[in-house]
């Protein structure tokens, strides 16, 4: 009797697991399918002598070719320039934004000064305004300093970094968990606030620093609105998103769709690899941020 029961329970469990695996495999296929398609399309030639370069109803190209990649490196467009621009912006923003967020978080987490809660509340309210509201104003502000069109890259970096102090939540939440007793002990030993910040807090915050820098590094690769508005028609100042979206939205996309795929792959692969390496820190930051709210 008893044996039979455990047997049926085992069978139930196995059926349950089988369903779970089936669901997981289905989910994996759905999630990977677009990326698989993207990779395959990037190897389809746009040369009409080889294969039709527009939209087709099959995934695997009939002839694998590197035509799209050759096109990107040929200098017919400014693709390499756009790529370089995005890389420069991403690096600068990642470094500067991380420094600013660390400074703000430390001040708000560790120091008690007049107007601290007022400042935090004020920034919270500011964050409720939609981001693109100020587009024209920012454009004219930057124009006053010559940071549009030809100077769009420092301009973009400035805009992304200038307001980044408001994104302190996750980092401050992390600082709050570092015991205050450590600071007090260091202070008794005669260390100044600046010294505590640099020698004690920063080294203890490696995970959150990596998280902040990673998020800051990834954002410029998707930045389309700000970048297109500030670079406005000056091709050499585009980033990859601005430069390549035209290949999809232009009326002539039939000839450019596969080229977009190839360009997209070249953007996605390094960013994805970097992300996968630092995934642990990302998960930590995101989970911590979600619970703190």
């Amino acid at each position, binding site marked *: 009797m008893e044996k039979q029961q455990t047997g049926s329970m085992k069978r139930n469990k196995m059926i349950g697991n089988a369903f779970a695996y089936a*669901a997981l495999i289905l989910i994996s296929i759905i999630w990977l399918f677009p990326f698989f398609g993207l990779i395959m399309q990037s190897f389809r030639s746009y040369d009409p002598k080889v294969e039709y370069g527009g*939209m087709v109803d099959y995934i695997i190209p009939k002839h694998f070719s590197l035509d799209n990649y050759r096109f990107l490196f040929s200098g017919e467009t400014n693709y390499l320039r756009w790529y370089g621009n995005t890389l420069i912006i991403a690096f600068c923003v990642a470094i500067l934004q991380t420094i600013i967020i660390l400074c703000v978080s430390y*001040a708000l987490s560790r120091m008690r000064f007049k107007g601290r809660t007022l400042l935090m509340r004020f920034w919270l309210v500011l964050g409720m*305004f939609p981001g693109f509201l*100020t587009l*024209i104003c920012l454009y004219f502000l930057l124009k006053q300093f010559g940071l549009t069109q030809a100077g769009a890259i420092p301009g973009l970096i400035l805009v992304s970094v200038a*307001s980044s102090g408001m994104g302190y939540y996750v980092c401050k939440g992390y600082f709050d968990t570092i015991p205050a007793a450590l600071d007090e002990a260091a202070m008794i030993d005669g260390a*100044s606030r600046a010294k505590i910040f640099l020698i004690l807090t920063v080294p203890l915050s490696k995970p959150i620093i990596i998280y902040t820098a990673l998020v800051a590094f990834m954002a410029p690769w998707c930045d389309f609105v700000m970048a297109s508005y500030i670079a406005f028609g000056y091709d050499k100042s585009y980033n990859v998103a601005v430069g390549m979206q035209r290949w999809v939205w232009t009326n002539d996309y039939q000839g450019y769709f596969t080229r977009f795929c190839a360009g997209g792959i070249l953007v996605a692969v390094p960013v994805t690899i970097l992300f996968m390496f630092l995934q642990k820190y990302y998960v930590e930051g995101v989970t911590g941020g979600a619970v703190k709210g």
Partner: protein
Amino acid sequence: MDVIRKFFRAVGENIASIGTTFAQGDAKTRLSYLIFGIGPLMRGQIVKGLAFLSCEALFIWYMVSFGWTYLSKFSTLGTVETHKEHRVTVYGDNSFLILLFGLLTIVLIFLVILVWRMNIEENRYEESLLKAGKKLPANKSVLGSLLDGNFDKTLLALPVLGIFLFTVLPIMFMICVAFTNYDKNHQSPTNLFTWVGLDNFKQLFTFGSSGFGTTFLKVLAWTMVWAFFATFLDYFLGMAVAILINKKGIKFKKLWRTILVITIAVPQFVSLLYVYKMFANDGLVNGYLMKWGWISSPIPFWTDPMLARITIIVVNIWIGIPYMMLIATGLLMNIPEELYESARIDGATPFQMFRSITLPYMLFVTGPFLLTQFTGNLNNFNVIYLLTKGQPQSMKMAENAGQTDLLVTWLYKMTVTNTDYKMAAVIGIMVFLVVAVTSLIVYNMLPSVRDEGGFQ
């Protein structure tokens, strides 16, 4: 009410203090009322004195060189139009710059009053120290405190300045624009624009062919529907996937997670634009369905209004599940295993356990997160813009609004395509109100706010 009373009391106390300091102060202090920081300078407080003095000098230089010119035209936003004299264009007033620098000047005046008040307070403090027979702090230690006691000022100076110049000032500017007629017919520097009071808000709530009312309500309704589905579908499905992967006996947990996480890693403009093409009329999905003979004509995923909305929400699930899955995975591990153990002994089914243990815990812990997700989705520009750009277009809607436009994407279109800045500003204020009101209402309803120790 209490806040207002406190505020007025503080103002009163400040004014009283300014008066008594002047009446009881010495000549150095009184002179400081006119020349900032002269008192501290004469008492040997070089650093502080110079700081105050340079503030005043900079302010006077700013006002004389151009602040005053802009401020004096602020009430009209300029009267001299750009015109041609003997075929040469003579530029008149630039309303845009008058508004921008006028605002900047007003803020600076407030700041200088604040500095003036601090300068008086500093004088009073120094006098009281000297009267008590104490020494004033050395200049070196004043500077040194910027790295110690006053380190917060050093840390925050640059970020606060950046936020002021690139967020606060532009937002103030755009709020003002909502009360002007700045649009494609009034573009500076060729044309002037001026104050029009509440006209733009009236137009927003005018129903009929000339007003924005119908379009605004339609777009607002879709924005709310979208935010609701985008938030809660992602939330529950993401949690379900996390539970599935966490299930006992499932192997390769890391592999499944990694597969899902790729969507976060790949820049959205690559993945979403590809997905957009995948569902296009001549795209892969329709291509295969037709090849297999399931349908005879392409399914209009992006061109039929209702279908486009559904497709967007479905694609957003594809984007949103991995993110929620990551968060839920971490949190699910925090639920004490004994809770499930005892429930199992009581004979609870998995669904009952989910409903009375997992869900309450998750809702409690992630309440604030859900709120930020919701407000984030109200302003989710990327997903909408990269997928449909707000299309399909509708002739019945004002200002090029499409059937899938959110308030933000509509705002973007008004700014960039239609250059109807005044209405864009009005919509921006409306978005702010929607976000602020939802946040306030929901925040006060959250269990974790009402009852902090509720789940312990």
